[in-house]
């Protein structure tokens, strides 16, 4: 689904990736761990086309990302396949949880009625029904993260990027998030899990580590 081939990337004169090669197959659950400032969020920005690599190639679904970026339509279509939790992905503060959950589906072009029905269903699945009419600022952190997953599920995302999804959560809440991600993977969704810790023990197909600007097993 995503392939990095000898990608170099620097940000503000600091080398972050050097010859990074990585392959993320469709339907797999891959954990990439690395310390803070090792480039986890940069990886997300490269995948979503927010950043452009200095050198090397990134392919998404067989197409060069540079080509995808040249076409606004293709870039939108690519981004519409990606959901996220943590890192660059967050909820919109001036919309209720239900509106936030239905947002991605709505943007994807699903009819508002269907988007809302999917959102209501996803809110139920993620135990958010009781806070559906609340704003993000009025609910707990785990509920906010669950809402981000619900948003991805309501929009039937094909890839979910979880950027430190359990950081700052208690063990029970972290387990809940990890279980939901594992369930999504079983439903055929590709999961890229980025963490500064170890990541979930059960479920992932591969555990990789960011080291010296590259990823290794």
């Amino acid at each position, binding site marked *: 689904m995503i392939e990095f081939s000898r990608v170099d990337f620097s940000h503000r004169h600091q080398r972050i990736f050097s010859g990074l090669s990585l392959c993320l197959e469709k339907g797999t659950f891959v954990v990439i761990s690395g310390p803070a400032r090792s480039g986890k969020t940069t990886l997300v920005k490269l995948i*979503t*086309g*927010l950043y452009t690599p200095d050198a090397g190639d990134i392919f998404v679904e067989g197409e060069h990302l540079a080509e995808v*970026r040249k076409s*606004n*339509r293709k*870039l*939108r*279509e*690519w*981004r*519409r396949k*990606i959901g*996220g939790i943590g890192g*660059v*992905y*967050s909820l*919109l503060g*001036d*919309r209720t949880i239900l509106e936030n959950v239905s*947002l*991605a589906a*709505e*943007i*994807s*072009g699903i009819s*508002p009625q269907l988007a809302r029905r999917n959102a209501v269903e996803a809110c139920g699945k993620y135990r958010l029904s009781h806070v559906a009419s609340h704003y993000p600022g009025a609910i707990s952190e785990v509920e906010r993260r669950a809402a981000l997953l619900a948003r991805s599920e309501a*929009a039937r995302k094909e890839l979910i990027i979880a950027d430190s999804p359990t950081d700052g959560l208690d063990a029970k809440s972290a387990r809940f998030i990890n279980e939901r991600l594992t369930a999504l993977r079983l439903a055929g969704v590709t999961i890229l899990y980025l963490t500064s810790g170890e990541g979930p023990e059960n479920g992932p197909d591969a555990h990789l580590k960011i080291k010296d600007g590259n990823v290794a097993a």
Partner: protein
Amino acid sequence: MIRPQRFFRQLSRHFRREKRLSVGSFMVLLIILILVDLFWVASVNINNQYQNILKTAKMDVYLEEDLPDSLLAFFEVTLLQFEDVAFVDFTSREAAAQMLRSEFGSNILDGLEYNPLPRTYTISFYKGKSLADLDMLAGQLQNLEGVDTVDFGREWIQKVENVGTGLRRIGFFVGGIILFVVLLTMANTNRLTARTKLQEFTQLRLLGAGPSYLLYPFLMEGFFSAFIAAGLGWFILLTLLDQVSFIDFTLILPTMRDISLYCLAAGLTGTAGAYLGIRRFLIS
């Protein structure tokens, strides 16, 4: 696909969140547009007065001393043959002297050996003639044999026309500035709002929203702010003018069609301003 409900919902959300900024820019627009309305009413009415003066303009043809009375009938027929001349009034020397006495006293001409006042034809026209037309006619009349001088209050008409021309020029200048200010106000308001929404824009872009999704609420706010400010401006001005009574003067006001077109133009200007403010934030 553009869904009006969604955009109206976003517009109201947008307005609610940036309430102070939106209300501030709306008030600026309202004040500017009321000034435009006032200027419009003033220039339309001054122009109307100018047209009225032209409509009622008369031309006095003073005859030479030695023109024999026997030629007066022929002279009158000649005058009536000029274009747009409705009728001519003849004032004899005696009638002129009588008018002078009634105005300045019965002894005004005492001591003079003879009546020096000229015989006069006063020409009235069917329709208003421009200053250029009046000048041309005066020139033609002046060339007639037996005509001493021709007078139609040229200086006065010229002054009124100068005021009208000046107002039109100021109108174009002020109109240009107003257009610029409306554009600038909307552009700056939207630029400031967009800066506060950068994170939201990133989120929407990450979810695959296209420029139109981000753009429409801003364009709609630009359109409606300026459209409503223009309409409200007229409503306030017309209400105020309704409270003021003008003695012997009927104010000419724009028609509903004019006001509607004006509001639409203001709305479109607001939309353009909003686009200018937001376009730099639309990159993917």
